[in-house]
């Protein structure tokens, strides 16, 4: 079935939207990351204040630039996707580094020095301003679209970090509540899947259901007040973002073509593909497919190759010397173009004619053969006596 799929996929209009999809996957990764960061405890966030985040922003520049200016540098779509994925990989690595640093720092005591907060806040603000300028610049350039998206990812990330700083500031103003030590569990707790499932859906445990039972009753049917499942809600928001981006992409930025234009592009690509194939066929001519096409350029090309390779044995005017005479009607190994082609290609070792297939391309052999046959009926200076059998003169094919 892959035989069907791949060639078809290549001809699909707008197939570079897959690049957009992989981008959105990474976008989703960062949103998840943001959510996790959002829920970090104040102690962790305090530790983050010691991080020189401005430095991280500087590291992000190369990735962004690479991704979004790819088309300025004339990168093809394939290379561009590679560049994008590379930069996404770089970002992921950076984030992992950031996470491990945070983990490490959270083992330290929180820094009570408020001054540091202001400093990193200022740095954060400056950075987001810089981001805004950059965004504006990209928005105005015509490679904008995917660059905009990448830039947006960064913006989201830093906004998230800023929000956290804000939260920690607010938290640090409120009296800290003592975190009560967890009571030793009396019974076996929920298994790992249960816990994952519960976290995913923000379930209230079944045993605590009564707490969220609403006072609705309809013919005995009751209703619980569970939260909207977070993954569902975020998925919903994501779909709205995708919808907006899609409309923006196709109808405002017109980065990808709509049906009429997409058709023209697909037809052109199809045409090019067919042409390339046919040309490769022509280039792969062999002794069964060669035709006698008496064209000026072939004869000229054949003559120059003949002069280079064949005159030693066959004389410059084809009259023959060591090798036979080409100007008469007698041929040792057949007088059709296919037979002449075959002789040049494979040689006739027992007669001293060497093989040329390692020296000449199929088209070159064809042109030499064409030249040789065009010598029929000419008058050489010192013709060798006829050898072989008579053949009727070959008729050139219609081109």
């Amino acid at each position: 079935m892959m035989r069907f799929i791949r060639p078809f996929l290549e001809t699909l209009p707008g197939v570079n939207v897959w690049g957009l999809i992989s981008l959105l996957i990474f976008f989703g990764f960062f949103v998840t990351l943001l959510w996790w960061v959002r829920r970090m405890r104040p102690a962790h966030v305090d530790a983050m204040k010691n991080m020189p985040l401005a430095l991280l922003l500087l590291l992000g520049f190369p990735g962004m630039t690479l991704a979004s200016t790819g088309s300025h540098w004339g990168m093809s779509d394939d290379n561009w996707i590679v560049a994008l994925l590379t930069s996404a990989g770089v970002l992921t690595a950076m984030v992992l580094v950031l996470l491990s640093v945070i983990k490490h720092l959270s083992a330290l005591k929180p820094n009570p020095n408020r001054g540091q907060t202001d400093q990193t806040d200022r740095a954060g603000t400056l950075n987001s301003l810089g981001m805004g300028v950059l965004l504006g610049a990209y928005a105005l350039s015509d490679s904008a679209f995917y660059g905009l998206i990448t830039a947006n990812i960064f913006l989201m990330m830093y906004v998230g970090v800023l929000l956290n700083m804000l939260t920690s500031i607010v938290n640090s103003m409120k009296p800290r509540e003592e975190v009560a030590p967890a009571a030793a569990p009396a019974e076996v707790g929920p298994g790992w899947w249960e816990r994952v499932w519960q976290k995913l859906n923000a379930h209230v445990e079944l045993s605590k259901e009564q707490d969220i039972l609403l006072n609705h009753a309809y013919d005995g049917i009751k209703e619980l007040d569970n939260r909207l499942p977070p993954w569902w809600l975020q998925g919903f928001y994501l779909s709205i973002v995708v919808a907006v981006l899609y409309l923006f992409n196709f109808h405002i930025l017109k980065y990808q073509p709509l049906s009429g234009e997409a058709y023209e592009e697909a037809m052109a690509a199809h045409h090019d593909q067919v042409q390339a194939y046919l040309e490769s066929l022509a280039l792969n001519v062999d002794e069964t497919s060669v035709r006698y096409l008496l064209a000026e350029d072939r004869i000229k090309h054949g003559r120059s190759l003949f002069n280079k390779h064949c005159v030693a044995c066959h004389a410059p005017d084809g009259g023959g010397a060591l090798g036979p005479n080409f100007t008469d009607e007698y041929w040792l190994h057949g007088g059709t173009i296919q037979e002449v082609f075959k002789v040049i290609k494979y040689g006739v070792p027992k007669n001293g004619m060497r093989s040329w297939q390692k020296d000449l391309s199929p088209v070159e052999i064809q042109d030499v053969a064409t030249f040789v046959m065009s010598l029929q009926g000419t008058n050489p200076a010192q013709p060798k006596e006829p050898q072989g059998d008579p053949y009727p003169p070959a008729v050139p094919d219609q081109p």
Partner: protein
Amino acid sequence: MNNDVFHYDNGIVRNFAVATMIWGLVGMLVGLTVASQLVWPELNADLPWLTFGRLRPLHTNAVIFAFVGNGIFAGVYYSMQRLLKTRMWSDALGKINFWGWQLIIVSAALTLPMGYTTSKEYAELEWPIDIAITLIWVVFGLNMFMTILKRRERHLYVAIWFYIATFVTVAVLHVVNSFELPVSLTKSYSWYAGVQDALVQWWYGHNAVAFFLTTPYLGLMYYFIPKASNRPIYSYRLSIVHFWALIFIYIWAGPHHLLHTALPDWAQSLGTVFSVMLIAPSWGGMLNGLLTLRGAWDRVRKDPILKFMVVAVSAYGMATLEGPLLSLKNINAISHFTDWTIAHVHVGGLGWNGMLTFGMLYWLIPRIFQTKLHSERAANWHFWIATLGILFYALPLYWAGFTQAMMWKQFRPEGMLTHPNFLETVLQIIPMYAMRVVGGTMYLAGAILMTWNLWATMKGGSLLRNEEASAPALASVEGRMQGERFHRWLERKPTLLLILSLVVILIGGVAEMVPTMLVESNVPTIDAVTPYTPLELEGRDLYIREGCNNCHSQMIRPFPDETERYGPYSRAGEFVYDHPFLWGSKRTGPDLQREGDRYPDSWHFYHMMDPESMSPGSIMPRYPWLIEHALDTELTNAKIEAMRTLGVPYPEGYEVENGGPSQALRDLQAQADAIVERLDKDGVKCASDREIVALIAYLQRLGTDFTSTQEP
């Protein structure tokens, strides 16, 4: 506090439940018939009333309006009374609803095989029946709404919101899509033409799925799952959010049936993006249904009713993910016009609607008959047979759809199509059609088993026609109640809820249809396109009568493989005189949009008489009556006049008789004579008054206006 004593009407529920079962069997049997006809075309039996083209709409109408329709009424009448703690407002209206609806179904069963059809999918019934549907729907709505107004349960449960939204939206959809100009008692022409007709039709068609097959069933799900499992609904908040999101977003998604067609690009994009946004609201319903069963999963293992409901809701989730994915243009490029769409439809129809109906019937019939289900074992068997039947139905068709699409699109390296003969792609998938017949048979067998089981249950019990209940009457309340937030307040304002729902569902339709109707650049004029001649018009009506659009599309998409196979892709301006449009939605046979001048007249003659004579192995039915019957030209003049009223620029007086036949009829005769002469040259003897002559005229006209403007 004094309690009112009142009685729930179970008689009407019983009536609708029995009708659901009977029409379920009928609809599924017709479905099995048409599925079998694709594998064994002999089953068309050379009878006009049994051809695939005429029976397929009978299948769709029967399963949607007769099976699901009666299921809706059965469930709504049962649940609504109990959720509102009152009897239906009017027993008489209930009876009119019941008998009126059955009469509509019977008239469909009679008119569709006779060829009285508008050709518009799920709206094939002609205008007198459309009027009847409107009246009965109003009766239903009136009864429902008055019941709501005289309720004893102050707040409206989520199921009721869904019922209200269903009522208003179906009313709007049906009325707007049914704007048609009658020509006779059994024939009308769509008010809209071409691109606009396509948009209105699929705004209707998609939202018939949304508001007839989905929202009322979501309402039923919200009632029957908690009742059957004795569990509270998982999340009240989720029901609010997904209800409003669903009814708002669904309306916009109609154009996803028209991707890569002549519909303007902006409308197609709206269809795509709103379909993607629809995943979450639909899944909200699935989640609320499945998560309500938390804590009851051990009972699901044993109780067949809960099993039916779980599969139903899961199938709903699958279909509402697949649908949006099929609305992405890249995937739609593969799936459109293939059996993939059919598979998708049946996952939803058999999985969601069918299984939930079965679960509901198994639960409610023993209850109203005051007895136990006759055989729980048989119900379990039914469950497994039905579930397997769905798999055997859908999986072969996925394979078939994908295979056929790939075969259509394949090019040889030299640039020609690998499978230039369309028939080759059909023959390739006939084994899958056979497997699907197995799946459908299993599903029908399960339904027969259920009908026996429930009939035995009914026989073994006694109907509690009027079930006593009591509840205090509702005192009216001014302003907000204590702690009542906005939506909770809205839940006791049914009129406002109805108006808000109406406004919400109107937005999408207006946003999409108004620009398409009013902004001329959406349908660029092509000067070479002229109206159909009278003979061609008659031929077109024959095409509609025989249901040719059920197998043949008339919409060439802008893909290299399509233009290579069929000719230049279809432009919007070519369809301006097509009342109704005939773009089709499935290619069991090849696209016909540029059929004109492709074959000689005699080819068409032989092909209609016996398709296998021109296409060996063809599964198309034979149409010998087209050659035997004379064309009825009684209505030709009236048709020309009707078309002119609809905006087709026939010359004034073209259809007027003064002393002799009208100019229209004379032109008809002249064109018919010309065709007969050409047929004669090819050795075909045919009188000029036969129906086949008109059909040939129509087929030979198709697509030729536009191609005349193209360079050779």
